[in-house]
C-alpha cells in the first residue's frame, strides 16, 4: 500500500507539493494527472524516498519513506523522472547488475533479465550502452529495472512517454496484471487514453494540491475528469507567428 498524509515540499517560497493526502491500496492502479509543474514528479520522488518532505508523512508497503531503509528499497520499484540508469553498462548488464544487488542468484537474474528484455522488446539492443540508447529504450530499461525484483509497490513517473504505442499498450497491460496479483501501482501520465484503460483510481494535482481523487469510472473518462479539474487552455496566437 502507498499512503501519504498532508505531504508537503517547498522549493524556496513555492510549495511544489502542498498537503497531499492519498492512498493506493494493494491491487489498485492509481493514475496521477496534472499539468507540467503540478508536483507529480516531486510527489513520486518523496514517496520513493529520494526527496525529504518538509511536512506530513508517507509510507509504502508499511515502511516510512523518510527513513528510506534497505527493506523499504527492496519493497518498491521505481521509475524516476531521470530514469536512474548506470551510464557505462549495457542494457543487459544494467539488469543483471541490479538483479544481483537485489540478492537474486545468477540463474534467476539471467532468467528474469531475459524475460523482461523479451517482454519489452529490448532483446535486439541488449548490448547497447544505456547512454547510447534512444529515449524509448532507456525508458523501457528503467521500467525493467523497476519490475526485476517483483516489488509490492510500483511508482512510475510518466512510464509511457517516449515509448512507442504498441509497447505502451503492452506495458499498460503489464501494470494492470501486476495490480491484479496484489501490487499497488502509482503512475503519472499525460496519456489519458491509457489511463482510461488501466487506472482504478484517478488523482489530479494542480499547483501541488489534490483537486480530484476519484475511483475510475467507465462513464467519466480521465480526459473529462482532468479538464473539469484543470480547465482547458484557450487557443492562442502571436501576431508575428501568424504572418509570413
Amino acid at each position, binding site marked *: 500500500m502507498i499512503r501519504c498524509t498532508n505531504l508537503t515540499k517547498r522549493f524556496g517560497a513555492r510549495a511544489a507539493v502542498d498537503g497531499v493526502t492519498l492512498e493506493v491500496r494493494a491491487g489498485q492502479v492509481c493514475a496521477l494527472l496534472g499539468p507540467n509543474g503540478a508536483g507529480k514528479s516531486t510527489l513520486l*520522488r518523496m514517496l520513493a524516498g*529520494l526527496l*525529504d518532505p518538509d511536512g506530513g508523512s508517507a509510507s509504502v508497503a508499511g515502511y516510512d519513506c523518510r527513513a528510506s531503509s534497505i527493506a523499504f528499497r527492496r519493497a518498491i520499484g521505481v521509475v524516476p523522472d531521470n530514469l536512474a*540508469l548506470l551510464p557505462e*553498462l549495457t542494457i543487459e548488464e544494467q539488469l543483471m547488475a541490479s538483479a544481483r*544487488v537485489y540478492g537474486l542468484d545468477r540463474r534467476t537474474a539471467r532468467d528474469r533479465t531475459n524475460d523482461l528484455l523479451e517482454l519489452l522488446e529490448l532483446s535486439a539492443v541488449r548490448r547497447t550502452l544505456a547512454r547510447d540508447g534512444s529515449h524509448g529504450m532507456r525508458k523501457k530499461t528503467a521500467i525493467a529495472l523497476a519490475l526485476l525484483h517483483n516489488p509490492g509497490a510500483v511508482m512510475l513517473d510518466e512510464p509511457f512517454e517516449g515509448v512507442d504505442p504498441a509497447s505502451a499498450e503492452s506495458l499498460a497491460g503489464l501494470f494492470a496484471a501486476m495490480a491484479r496479483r496484489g501490487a499497488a501501482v502509482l503512475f503519472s501520465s499525460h496519456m489519458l487514453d491509457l489511463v482510461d484503460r488501466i487506472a482504478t483510481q484517478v488523482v489530479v494535482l494542480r499547483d501541488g494540491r489534490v483537486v480530484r481523487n476519484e475511483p475510475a469510472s467507465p462513464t467519466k473518462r480521465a480526459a473529462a475528469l482532468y479538464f473539469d479539474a484543470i480547465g482547458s487552455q484557450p487557443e492562442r496566437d502571436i501576431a508575428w507567428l501568424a504572418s509570413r
Partner: protein
Amino acid sequence: MARVAVVLAVVVRSAFRNARGIGGFLGNNFFLVIVLLMAEEPTDRPSSTAIFYLVIGLLYAIPLANDLTLRIPAERFGLWPLGRGERALIHAANLVLNPLLAVAIAFAALSRHPAVRVGLLASGVVAPLAAYAFKWLARVLRRFDRLSLLRLIPPFPGPLGGLIQNHVREQLRMLDPYFAAALSLGGIVYRISTPNVDATAGLVIGSLVIILMSTLAQAHLGFDSASENTRERLLPISGAAVLWARDAAWFAIVAALAAGYASWPVVTEAFIALAIGHSQVARPRVEQKRGHFASGALWPVGIGQTVGIPVAGAFAHRFGLPVALASVVIYALSLYYYGRKLRRAWADDVESVAGTGAAGPA
C-alpha cells in the same frame, strides 16, 4: 561579423560563468605535487627537470584549452545560421580566448627564467592546437566505440560486481589512469634498462602512481550523473556498500598500474588515499568530465591525501606489515563512518549533497 561577435560574447560569458575548467586543473593532487616540486627548483637557472614539469603541466592543462565553442551544444551550434568562414573565425578566436593562455601568461610573468617563460608562452599557444588534435582523435575513436576495450571489462564477482564493473569503466574514461600507466611503464623501463637501479626508485614511482590516482579516489560521487546517483540511492544497499563498490573499482585499476611496485608501503598508501578520499562524500560534489583529468577539492582532502600518502608510505617502509594492517583498519573505519554519513546526507538534503540535479519542482 556581427554574428561572430554575438557568438563569441555568448561563449566567453559562459566560459567565465563556468570556471570549472580552471578549478579542475587546480583540483588535481598531481598538479599540486608538480607545484611543490617546482618550488624546490633553483631560482638562478632552469634545472634539467624544468622541461619535464613543463611537459607534465602542459598535458594536464590541455583540457583547459579545449575549444570554448564546446560550451554550446553541438546541435545548437550546428543549427545557427553561420557561414563556413564565420565558424572558422569563431574556432580561431579560441586560440586567443582560451583560459590556458591567460594562465600561461600569469605563470610566465612570475617565472625568473627566460627559457621557462618562453616555454610557458609557447604552451599557451600550442595547447589549444593540441586540444583540437585530441578532439579530432577522440572523434575518430568514437566511430570505433563498439570495439571499445572498456566494454570487454566483465562484471566482477559478488552481488556488487555489476556496480564495480560500471565504476571501473567510468574511471577508465578519465585521463589519470593512462598518465599513471605511462609513469608506471616508464619506471619499469628504467629498472630494466639501468644496471644499478636506485633501491628506492620503485617506492617513489609506486607513491607517484598512488598520488596520481588519488584525486580519482576522492572524486567518488563526481562521476554520477543525476541518473546514476538516483539508481544508487534506490538500490537496497548501505552507504558503505555504495562507497565500497567505487573503492573496489579504483583498487582494481591501481592494482594493475602498481603491480610492478607492489610493497607494503604502496598498499598502505592506497588504503590511506581511499580513507582520506571518503571525507569528500558529504561535501558538495566536484563534477567530473570524461576525457579530462579528475578534479577534486584541494583543501582539505587533496592536501590531506598529498601529505598523508607519502607519510603513510614512509611509516610502512620503516615498520612494514603492522602499518599496512593499521591502514586497512583506518580504511574500514572510514568506510563505515562515511558510508553512514553518505546515506544521512542523502536523507537530509538528498538533492544538493548528492547532486541529483533535479531539485526543482516537477
